[in-house]
């Protein structure tokens, strides 16, 4: 019932890796770690969810907020490495149409570079 995040900075891109569970109780922590990365206009953020086992609707909200911030600030926000059960939630909620998704970190970096 916890989440942990590690941050890497790759050239002009921030890579945040989240692992564990993202639900109502852990989403504030991700919010605190993720949203500041998108404050700078034009910032590029890659959120790696390869280690994330579960996401709830409260967790989706944080990710939507990140996407919206990126849009407002003219930056880019890409998700990558979603596990099937996480991907399913994204698909069911219909947010795959709004969010940029990549299969892996490398693909995500490629998108951000492009």
């Amino acid at each position, binding site marked *: 019932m916890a989440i942990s995040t590690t941050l890497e900075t790759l050239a002009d891109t921030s890579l945040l890796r989240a692992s564990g569970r993202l639900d109502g109780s852990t989403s504030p922590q991700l919010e605190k770690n993720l949203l500041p990365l998108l404050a700078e206009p034009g910032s590029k953020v890659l959120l790696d969810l390869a280690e994330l086992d579960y996401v709830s609707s409260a967790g989706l909200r944080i990710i939507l907020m990140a996407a919206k911030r990126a849009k407002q600030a003219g930056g880019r926000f890409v998700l990558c490495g979603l596990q099937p059960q996480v991907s399913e939630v994204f698909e069911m909620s219909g947010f795959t149409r*709004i969010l940029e998704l990549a299969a892996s970190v490398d693909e995500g970096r490629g998108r951000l570079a492009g």
Partner: protein
Amino acid sequence: MRLAIHSLKARIFLALAAILGLVACVVMAHSLLAVRESAIVAEQRSVQNVLRMAELAIRSEYHTLLAGKVALVQERKARFREFDRVILQTLAHYQNLATQGQLSEQEARTQALAWLQKIRPVGGEYLLVFDRDGVALVYPEPALLGTQLSGYTDFKGRSVVAAAWDEADRYGETVLIYDWKAVGSNRLVQRYGHFLPFRPWNWMVASVGRVDEVQGEADARLAQFRTELARSLGQVEVSGNGAVVIFDGQGQWVVPPAAANDDIDPRAKTALRAAAGNRDAVHFQGRDGRVMQGWATYVRALDWYVAVAAPEAALTAPARNLVTRQALVFAGGLLLGLLLAWAVASGIARPLVRLGQYAKGLAGADFSAAPVQSMPADLADGRQDEIGALARSFASMETALYRNVRSLVEITGERERIEGELGVARDIQLGLLPKMFPAFPERPEIDLHATLVSAREIGGDLYDFFLTGDTLNFTIGDVAGKGVPAALFMAITKTLMKAAGESCTTPGAAVCQVNDHLARDNPNLMFVTAFNGVLDLHTGELQFANAGHNPPLILRADGRCEILRNISGPALGAFEDMEYASFTEYLQPGDWLLLYTDGVTEAMDAAGQLYGETRLAQLMAACDTRGNAEQRVNTLMADLATHVGAADQSDDITVLAIRYLGAATHTDKEET
């Protein structure tokens, strides 16, 4: 006050009492023994001192007597010498007359002798004159005149006459002590004489006295001394009717004891005589069988035994009295000490008892009332010791209790207020949802049932259904998150959805309209997944739009289970200007449509296992097809409860079951 043996007071008191008792016993035993011993010794010494004093007095008096006797003899001798000198001068006078020729030698001698016959020495018995041959010239017995006197000897065995002449020739004069017959008898009497020779005529002139005359005087003085001694010793007090006595070598009384103190019999005398001069006491039986202790000393010059005796009981009586007195003093001291110990124990225990009463009182105090400091001030502030510190701790605890209980009461009140408000909010929220079942008893085409169970007082799930003509418009939705924000968002969504459902032609258009309304002013990016369907009750045509909601199940009458996986667009409220597609499906009479929120599929058991879509589908497929919608919903809820078990409900749960029963046999479309 009752003294419980386990109370602190009792323990302190007993400890103090034990210490006092032990100290008192040791000191008492030791001092009593010492006192007893020393008292007995002192008493014995005082008795012995009496003996010693008596002995000293006797010896001193004896020496005085002896000195008196010597002085008497000396005085007699001096007197005899003077007397003899006077006689010699007289004889010289007679001899001078003869020399001058006034008298013949013979006449002078005869006249001189006649004169000498007539005189007696002062203090003496008689005058003795003899010539160098020892022939008596002057003597009190006329028969012996002219006879030889040399038969008498002095105490050295010499002939008195020869010795007198011998010593007089050598020293000019002499004094002799000797035995001589008495005047008028042949009994020997000790005498002394001063011998002075008259050379011209070879006469020896001697003044003679009786020694027993001197002795008699000494004896008289001794008798007087005995009398005085008897009187004075009679006055000497010896403890317990004891007595100082004197007896002589033959066991005869010199100074007898007073009649009342007649404790010394001949056997006792023998024992005392044997122990004379010893320091240790002689024990013997006195009058009436009482045990006596005695000491004796021997005065050899007088052949006297001076003895002192006292009853043993009297000798030890002062020690006994002293011991008794001291024991009483000790007992008094001990009693005083015990009283003091009691006071000390009470003094220590009393504040503790009061603290106990205070603490007992605290248990019954109403801490929600106005704070009252019930700690006695003299305990908390008046004492600087550990009890004072304890009392202050209690007092501050009491203050803290008042404060904490008060804040607890306030918090509880606040929580109750919030809970009350939440309860009202819940009522309002539930009031938004249609809850009358069966919902449409006048429409045999459908059987419908729904339930909503919030994880908290209020939640973010919603459902709704209403008829528009011959179509059933229904919605199920799930706001992201829980609690008050979700509930507010749910209320808005439900209202918007109803309005959109009534005004829009297709579900896609309706959810699109709701999305735009919600997303327009939504800084927190709240969103709601929603499924909106429109069922034509005549045809069974189902139009629907799914905005990111869990896919509903269609349970066909023949037992097949289909899942409506079509997604029209993302959940509502996140982004404006999204497009939502509408889809179409057909229900046959007897088919079921089951809508639910993720509270169902994501219901977790204690092990964290999700309920899941698969189990849901299996359960629904296994359901009795003849059952109504309410039964089906209840079956699902019961299975969910079984799965969750004791675990907490983590999310709102909503289920909406619709059974299409086919068009009515007689249509009343126009009338409705």
